[in-house]
């Protein structure tokens, strides 16, 4: 097995995912199989190869005028939030 339970706990923490004790062994198993599977990439000779991040190589990001194009729709957007008050999103207290 490539990944231990401890590794999965660490990855889950980095990804801000709560994974229960009972689920850890199954994730360690399936994630290890996936990592073992992608290890075959090592067989490719890529010494002289540039990485490809975007399928249309010559495309560049466009610039646009720095002008306001969006209107204030806060009330509408906040209808999808669990907890709002006076136009603010509420979360548990951060500073004691």
């Amino acid at each position, binding site marked *: 097995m490539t990944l231990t339970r401890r590794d999965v706990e660490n990855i*889950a923490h*980095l990804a*801000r995912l*709560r994974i229960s004790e009972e689920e850890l062994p199954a994730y360690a198993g399936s994630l290890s199989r996936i990592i073992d599977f*992608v290890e075959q*990439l090592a067989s490719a000779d*890529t010494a002289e190869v540039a990485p490809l991040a975007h399928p249309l190589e010559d495309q560049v990001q*466009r610039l646009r005028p720095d002008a306001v194009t969006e209107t204030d729709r806060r009330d509408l957007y906040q209808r999808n939030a669990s907890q709002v008050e006076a136009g603010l*999103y509420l979360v548990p207290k951060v500073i004691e």
Partner: protein
Amino acid sequence: MSPHLKSVAELSRGLAAREFSSVELTRHFLARIEAGNPRLNAFVTVCAERSLAEAARADAAIAAGGAGPLTGVPLAHKDIFCTEGVLTTCGSRMLANFVSPYDATVVSRLAAAGMVTLGKLNMDEFAMGSSNETSFFGPVRNPWNEAFVPGGSSGGSAAAVAARLAPVATGTDTGGSIRQPAALTGLTGIKPTYGRVSRYGMIAFASSLDQAGVLALSAEDAALVLEAMAGFDERDSTSVDAPVPSYRAEIERPVRGLKVGIIREFFGEGLEARTGAAVQAALDVYRRLGAELVEVSLPNLALSVPTYYVVAPAECSSNLSRFDGVRFGYRCEDPRDLLDLYTRSRGEGFGPEVKRRIMTGTYVLSAGYYDAYYLKAQKVRSLINEDFRRAFAEVDVLIGPTAPTPAFELGAKMDDPITMYLNDIYTIGANLAGLPALSAPCGLVDGLPVGLQVIGPHFAESRVLAAAHAYQRETDWHLKVPAGWE
């Protein structure tokens, strides 16, 4: 002929000739959805009232002489496309209560073309899956045999159109999510060139791969709808600013003299024998039509699945970090503190496959592993891209199977992610290289459809559609209706 057996092109002619109204058509499909959806679970949301209002507006436009070719034709959207005022779930508990405050560009363009939205279609959670079994709203069933999966992730789109609950549907394709379900349900599905269709309002999975497209009954229908969807959109920074040709007009181009590359690597071990035979029979049709067939090799294609399962999870782990339980989406009960709010909202809001992919992505991007996995995968992606480039210097299109087998039974591949991932072995290459690719039905194996895949160079959607259209003029696989859904 019952309206649900007609193609989009035929419905368009029927509406123009006043054989039926859009309201009548919409009622007909709504009734079929009501009767048939409990068996298939293809729809997450049905917009009955809204669609009838849109149909009435379409009828008024037709009466006033202001109708386009798609005015009044119903369709349904994959639930990954934001639809203003309508639940947009992405197949996830995370968004089970999300009512979109705006329309995706795909939705607004098709509405502007006069199309009527019947509802929103089930899908694998966040488009991660090849069987539509990862949806929070339960699996979708294949109308050809309800014990079998419809493919994924656009499984609801595929099942709805195959069962004639909707004349056409939108889908998205990150690693085969339009083509594989189209193949498994006997439909024509096209993923256009990366950047051809706007992704504004299309919930992101893997941004260097995601592209929107169509699942339809024929290449002609796919051409008609794609033409209305495609085009530049300043709200999507990856949208390509190039004119959209008339796909509908250009698909009439004959295939005589077309140079067809047969991908050697697609016909090896792993391809189920009768699926391979059906694809070979389709190649004979192309020979008969005067196409020139040559074998080509894409030696690095064998690495496309491992490349994808580094690149896609890496991008998804980044894209899905926006779901934090604060501004929208699922929030856990009684969070202790902010960290607890984040981790439990995400832990409870995402299903197992999505969590697995987020963690795979987090791992391959983490310090010490980035070079070995993510950078390596991007380099292999270059090699695969180069393979395609070399092939298209020799041939006009590439043809092969879409999926290695016909549909499999529900539950058959849920225990092992690698087995599930290998379903996309023939489709992932086109996503890695950003190429337009289509699946068209080319046979039945034990009563289940199999698909033929046509891949073209960048922006050769017309050529790919024309190749499928020529085949469909010679064959009737695309006209087959699953038993019980006539």
